[in-house]
């Protein structure tokens, strides 16, 4: 049977949803960041697939930039985590609770 664009889109969606689960349930910030990577990666599959089926390079470009963005985010995110961890010696988001209301 033919694998069509829809297959890839559905796969992408499923992966994205897994990412969402991760984002929502993770309390450890580092592992939460993993989930955000999943989000971006799932979209990349779709981009590549669309690019393939439409015969258009733009999708690959987008995927390329998404990767770049993901990488930058990791850098900044880790930086933030490190500075937090140095001070408070944990990376559990339940401790981020000084502000509310």
């Amino acid at each position: 049977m033919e694998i069509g664009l829809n297959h890839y889109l559905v796969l992408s969606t499923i992966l994205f949803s897994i990412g969402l689960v991760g984002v929502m349930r993770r309390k450890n910030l580092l592992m939460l960041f993993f989930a955000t990577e999943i989000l971006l990666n799932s979209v990349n599959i779709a981009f590549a697939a669309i690019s393939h089926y439409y015969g258009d390079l733009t999708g690959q470009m987008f995927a390329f930039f998404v990767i770049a963005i993901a990488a930058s985010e990791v850098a900044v995110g880790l930086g933030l985590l490190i500075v937090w961890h140095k001070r408070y010696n944990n990376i559990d988001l339940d401790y981020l609770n000084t502000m509310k209301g």
Partner: protein
Amino acid sequence: MSPVNISVESLNLVTLAPMLIPIVGALLILIIDMFKGGLDKSLYVMLSLLILFIDFNALLNSAGVFNQNGTMSGVFDVMLIDGLAILSQFIIVGASMLFIPLALTHKRFHEFSYPEFFALFLFMIAGFQFMVATDNLILVFVGLETASLALYTLIAMHNREKSFEAAIKYFTMGALAAGFFSFGAMVFYALTGSIEINQIAAVLSANGYADIGFVLIGVAFMLASFGFKLSMVPFHTWTPDVYEGSSAALAGYMSIVPKIAGFVVSMRFFEFLIHSGVVWLEVVLYILVVVTMTAANIWALVQTDVKRMLAYSSVSHAGFVMAAILIGTTQSNSALFLYWILFSFTNLGAFSMLWISRQKNLPTHQSSDHSFEKFSGMIKTSPMAASVMALFMLSLAGVPPFALFWGKMYMISSAVTGGYPVLALIMALNSAIAGYYYLKLIVFMFMKEPQTRSLGGAVYVTNATGALKTIIGFATIGTIFAFLAVNPILEFVTSFVYNSGY
């Protein structure tokens, strides 16, 4: 594969000029720091100011060109310099110019002691400028992320618990929003094979919106993503925490610049959908606008910290302005810019007032940096500062003839002319609700007794320097005499918006 032949003229590189200037400036700062460390912040402030000044002039130049030739595109049609781009860049750069002198505080704060702060700041401006000056979703995304990443760092550099917490929260939610954005872009790419908004619009209308389900999915993701950036309820949850965590000056800045960038992109993206009669979007935007305005307003009622209250208030203002995109007429879009220009004066002024009263350590009677109690009886100890603060509050509440009233008035008028009478009414009534919390501060300042009279008025100007006072003076004059400026601004804005086809 044929070789690529491109003439430099066709690239229209001048369109890049306004963005390149801050980038070059940022690099300059980094280089200066490399050669000679430990220079005083005043140098960097002035340097940044100068760079922004040049940037502003470049924008003036673009504006002149736009006036003559209309919309420009450049560098393989990635750059799109239309009226919206120019107007929003004016706001971005102008607000930045007002913001940067706020670094010259009397007290020492962590971030300003490091030149990286200024470099990142300029990079961020460039990021926002790129974001608004294109209709290519890739560049929007990249510009947005450049700016956001820099912004997260700027927040964290304030270097205390709340600021880290704020930065992490902002960052994490930003990452999720980035995911939404890319997914939304993907859906539209799947639908139209393009990631340029013009192209998307053209293909969609050529298809007659046959795949309305897909369109709506894409719009939903896009709305969620911009909803985060523009702090629409329920994507707004970061706003109060982040504003509270960052320094007052930066919070004021955040309430203006990132949002105008977001508004411009949303305008580009949603306007054509609204005009194509996507009823769903109208309904959803209507709900979002109303809920954002109202909910943020009522949450602001119960705040105990002025900065947090202002955070909710700026959420509400954003909701108010979002109505412009829903209404989608030239008048409403002009109203958006008018509103935001006036808002930036007032809001920056208000946050600056908080900024000059920022103490390093909290006295016992204060529950937070800018708790309402702190301002008790301010009129008795420092009447001038209290009057100015009250002025900003009244302006935010929309009491005429202060700046924001004109924006509100024009915005409501655009709702009226756009055929949204009920929305106009809701907007008006929300202003009334908002009146309460702005008044609350006035009540504390003017009608209560000072808690510690011994301190005198010093506590309210502990951070004041000539630079800060100048900025506040600017904002004050702008707020009071806005009625003189409204006409030129309005004419300018309307012609730009109209000539960009919005």
